[in-house]
Every structure is written in C-alpha cells, then in structure tokens.
C-alpha cells in the first residue's frame, strides 16, 4: 500500500488575521514527522503555520507553507506539576476547554485563544501579566524542534540552550516546532475579580499601571481619538484569579463552571471605509461612558476577561476586504511617557481612529529575540489604505526616536532598515541563521521582506 511520501501540496490563497497581504502559497499538510522531513529534504525554504492568527505575513511562504493542524494531540499531563505536553498544532482554545473545568489555566496567554501552541512559542506571546510573570517562555519547560538537517532536538533552558532561546520568539525561522511541555497554573475558580478604573489622560493611566505593579493582570483600552487634555484617556482593567471564598454565593457551588458565552459571527465583509473617524469615535465614546458606569469591582468569567474579541468570530471582516494592519511597539520605561504621547498625538491628529487600542506594561526581556522588554507596549489597528501606510511610517519613526521596537507577529509593513534601527539583536539573529544554515530551509514572506 501507500509508502510514506511527501504529501501533495495544493495552491491556496492565504493571509494573516489582518487580511493583508494576501498571497498564493503552496500549502502542505503533513501528518507525520517523516512526511515533514521529506518536505525539508526538497531544499525549498518553508514556514510552519498554525491557526493563521499572526496579523501580517509571518506565517506565509509562497514556495512552501507547512500547515501544522494535523499535529494536534495532547501527549501528557502531570496533575502534580501542571505540566502539559502538547503537539504544536493544538489550539489554546482546546486546552482551555479541557483544563479550566479541571482547575488549570495557562501561566501566560495572549488576547485570543485561537492560537496554536507552536504559534505561541514562535512569537513568544505575552499576556496581561507580563509585568509579573513574563512571556510564554517563562512557562515553557522544553520544546522539540525539527531543524534543517532533518534532526529533532529537545531544547530547554538547560539542553541546547541557544537553540531554545532563539526558537522562542524566533518566528518559526529556526526550525519546525513539533511539540512542547509547558506549565499551567492551578486555579480555584474560573472567575476573575476585575477592577475597572478610569484614567482621564496619559499621565493618569501610567500612574495607574505603576501603582498596580503587584496586580496579576492589567491592561488599558485607550481612546486614541481623544486629544488635547484628554489625550490618552483610558479604561484600565485589573484582574486577579478569584478564590472560592471571594465568589458570590451563586457561583460558589460550581466555581469552575462559567456560563457559555454567546458567539456572534461577522457574516460578511463590511464595506471599505465603514470604520472611519466618525464611527470609531462614536464607538469609543459609548465604550468609555459604559465603562465609567461599570467602574469598580466585579466578577467576570475567564473567557470574557481574557478573550473579549473572540466572541466576535471573524471580527477581522469589519475592516472590509482591504483588510487592516496592526501596529504594536514597546517603548522603554525611560521614554514611555513622552513617546506614547507622541504616538497618540500622531494617531489622533491623523484622525485614523483605531478600533482596538491597547496599552500594557511589560516586564523584562527573556528570549534572545522575543518582543517584550521592560516598558510600555501600545497596539493599534488601522483599516488598510494609502493614508494608513503614511500614518504607519510616522508611528514607526516615532518609535525609533524613542528607542522602541516592534512586534513581528503583528507586522506587515516594516522595512529591513527600520527593523535593524529598532533592534540591535537583528544582526545577531541573521548571523546565527546564516551560520546554522537555517536560511536554507526556513523563511516566510516576512523574513524575506525584512531580510532576516
């Protein structure tokens, strides 16, 4: 019968979550490691792709995109340590669905649960607790990596250490992440004790963050159309895993159960331009007023607190067919106040209101090439247009001016020069990639664009 051979590829039109850029790619869906090795041996550079939630072109490669969705098994769980071993294609949503009712929660989670384990490692994702608990690598015990020679290496902070720290945050450019062991934290309840605070301007929001150092989860939503004395006005959300005793009696009986959230699908693309200064401004105003009303303490379920946008399935469609671009940078602590103010001035002056503007304090850097560093990170998104490209240029220049750097998982616009100006680690990464021959086998449209 059939011998193990390289899987047939098929041509597919792919894009990231931002739906820009769109690219026709040869897609392969291997089901075993031997099939993957066969593909590697053809010598064409490839990139592994998880659930396609990177915003830009990080998980696209015209010549060969390796769809990892068949590697989605849970291989082991230790209820003493909370260590979970999972294949790279397992979705975070699956992990939550299985383990929250058993009293476990990921140590670090990004703002969407529709990401894969491999993707979380490749982007070394951070969450609302980065200032306290670091990025995903902090919860990672080891990973198995398939490298250029078709060998599989177990990498951890003690074994193949360099390979480990280049792979974490390495955007899939060091090899194919096959599986990993990482820790979940025990939780008593599936609820978050949330405190909402209102900040009238940028100074207030930063003061709130600084005062909330010991709070586990913190994040702010910024009204990026506000200007003048209200520049940077925000809604700050602080959260802690609720203990059983804290819970209102109605939840205490079954503290690990939460009501199913209603999911709404965006059924069609909004017309281009549906999101403009007027509609976004109105939305921001309403959101702000509503939050003011809710200021104070409440209990919210984990899904609502961590993954607010996931209940709007396909929310990327509200940006219309042209798609949108994300901009996310981090500014060091020393320049954050000034730098953020400049970034927000630029956004609000352009009237390029971002629907999703998020501010967050980050702790120290961990991986060799991971995005986070001690400082403040601002994420904005803009509907794709010629004007947006100009705004992005300005935002990137401001970031450089204040010593900040960019998040590759969200990028689809940077130039090789700007990336190098922002981050002195890039040259080292490229040198290592060349020396280890990783460039021969691993590349994405992003790595080609940025000459990584």
């Amino acid at each position, binding site marked *: 019968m059939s011998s193990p051979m390289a899987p047939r590829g098929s041509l597919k039109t792919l894009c990231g979550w931002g739906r820009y850029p769109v690219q026709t790619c040869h897609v392969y869906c291997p089901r075993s490691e031997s099939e993957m090795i066969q593909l590697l041996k053809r010598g064409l550079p490839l990139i592994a792709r998880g659930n396609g939630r990177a915003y830009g072109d990080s998980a696209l490669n015209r010549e060969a995109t390796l769809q990892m969705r068949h590697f989605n*098994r849970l291989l082991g769980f230790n209820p003493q340590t909370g260590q979970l071993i999972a294949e790279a294609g397992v979705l975070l949503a699956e992990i939550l669905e299985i383990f929250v009712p058993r009293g476990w929660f990921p140590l670090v989670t990004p703002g969407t649960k529709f990401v894969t384990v491999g993707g979380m490692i490749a982007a070394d994702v951070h969450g609302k607790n980065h200032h306290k608990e670091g990025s995903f690598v902090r919860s990672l015990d080891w990973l198995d990596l398939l490298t250029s020679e078709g060998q599989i290496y177990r990498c951890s902070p003690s074994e193949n250490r360099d390979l480990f720290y280049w792979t974490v945050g390495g955007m899939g450019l060091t090899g194919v992440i096959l599986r990993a062991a990482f820790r979940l934290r025990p939780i008593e309840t599936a609820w978050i004790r949330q405190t909402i605070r209102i900040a009238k301007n940028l100074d207030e929001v930063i003061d709130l963050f600084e005062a909330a150092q010991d709070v586990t989860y913190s994040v702010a939503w910024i009204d990026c159309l506000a200007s003048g004395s209200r520049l940077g006005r925000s809604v700050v959300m602080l959260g802690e895993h609720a203990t059983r005793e804290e819970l209102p009696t109605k939840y205490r009986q079954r503290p690990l159960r939460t009501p199913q959230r209603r999911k709404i699908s965006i059924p069609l693309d909004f017309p281009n331009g549906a999101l403009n200064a007027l509609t976004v401004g109105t939305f921001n105003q309403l959101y702000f007023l509503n939050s003011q009303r809710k200021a104070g303490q409440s209990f919210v379920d984990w899904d609502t607190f961590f993954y607010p946008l996931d209940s709007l399935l396909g929310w990327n469609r509200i940006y219309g067919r042209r798609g949108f671009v994300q901009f996310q940078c981090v500014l060091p602590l020393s320049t954050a106040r000034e730098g953020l103010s400049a970034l927000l001035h630029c956004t609000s002056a352009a009237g390029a209101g971002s629907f999703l503007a998020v501010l967050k304090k980050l702790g120290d850097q961990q991986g060799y090439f991971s995005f986070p560093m001690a400082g403040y990170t601002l994420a904005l998104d803009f509907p794709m247009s010629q004007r947006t490209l100009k705004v992005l240029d300005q935002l990137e220049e401001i970031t450089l001016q204040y010593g900040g750097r960019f998040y590759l998982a969200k990028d689809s616009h940077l130039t090789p020069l700007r990336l190098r100006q922002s981050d002195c680690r890039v040259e080292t990464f490229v040198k290592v990639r060349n020396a280890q021959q990783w460039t021969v086998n691993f590349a994405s449209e992003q790595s080609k664009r940025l000459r990584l």
Partner: protein
Amino acid sequence: MTAPVLILGATSDMGRAIAQRFAAQGYPIQLAARQVSRLERDKADLAIRYGVPVSVHEFDVLAVETHAAFIQQLPMQPAIVICVVGFMPAQKVCEQDCSLALDVMRTNYEGPAVILSLFANLFEQRGFGTLVGISSVAGERGRASNYFYGSGKAGFTAFLSGLRQRLAKSGVQVLTVLPGYVNTRMTEGMKLPPLLTAEPKEVANAIFAAIEKKKDVIYVRPIWRWIMLLIRWIPEPLFKRLSL
C-alpha cells in the same frame, strides 16, 4: 462500564475524528491500524482529553488469514466495530499497475468484508452489537475516473446490505455510511466543491447519530442522496459519453 468501540483504520483522519466523538461520549476506545506505533500519540490524546481507557492493536486489513487471531487477542469484545479502511491511489496508475489495482480492490472490499463477517458471527451469537462500514458514493455507479476504487466500494456496499438483511432479526445493527467528499488525506490537493465536502468531524457526528437512531444507510451530507439518485438515473448510452 460500556463495551468499547473498535476502529479499524484508526490512523486515518476519519478514524481519528470518530474515535474522538465516541470517547467524548465516554466509550472506551480500541484503535487498530497497520502501523500500530503511529497510534500511540492518539492513545495519549484520547486518554487526556476524555479520560477513557484506550488500547492500540495491530491490524492489517489485507492479511485476511490473521483476522480471526486479531479478534481473539482483543482484551475485550467491542460493542461497536467501525471499519474506516479505504485506499484510493490515482486511477491512471492503477490502470497500468495490476498489483496496485489488486490492492485497491482488496483493501476496499475483501479485507473489510472478511473482518466484518467474523464480527457478524460473534455479534449474532451474542444478540447485540453494531457493525459500521464506511463505503462510498463512488460505489453507486462506476466511473472512468475511479472505477477500481468504486468497484471495491460497490462490493462493500452490497456486502453490508446483505449482511444487514441476514442480521435483521438478531438485533445486530449494520450501518452503511456514504460520506461523499470528505476533507482528508485521501482527497488532499483535489479541488472539491465546499458545499459537497464534509469535514471528518461531520462524518463522526453523523455516524454517532445514525447508531442512536438505528439507521441502515446514511449519506453524511443529505444532498448526496439526490445527486446519486440523478447519477444512477442517467441512461448508460448517455452516461458513457459524459465526463463525470
């Protein structure tokens, strides 16, 4: 404890989806396939996700002389046997390579029929159980593009139909599943119409529901019933000139 569900051809995408569906319902699972080592990951996965007992067993559908021994060594007799085995290489290659063509015919008909026959005898004696055969709409009318595969499935469909009639009075259910196009390894790289193409999960759900409702024959997507009705109606003189 409920008796297990045995899945023959468990390394396939459909086999995996079916195992998950039944494990989610609390059934112990027996996974069987030629390369038994490839099932270890699935065993771990099913056990962690659903907390059910899972065992793995080596099974070669073409080695019909080993089938009786295979059944003997099962630690527990299954309540439900689901045969997902199937093999569809390119028709053009089969036309040139007799031994490959033979493999196709034997894998899709002879092997499944033999193993299900053996289970049928056991289940008939016992007076209960369910036998599920995944056949194909390709077996409903031979077509130039895949008649080796189609004829094997036609044989299997006829076999299941006869077996069902024989066992009708014994309390044993025989279910024929006609999935239509399914997005699996077998169809990878083919251009399939999305409206007619099911996901492996849908096949698993359909089988689960059909067993509960004691159905005989199901099309996974109902539209296939009408499509195949039309295709069977086309008169042969016309059919032979079409490129369907």
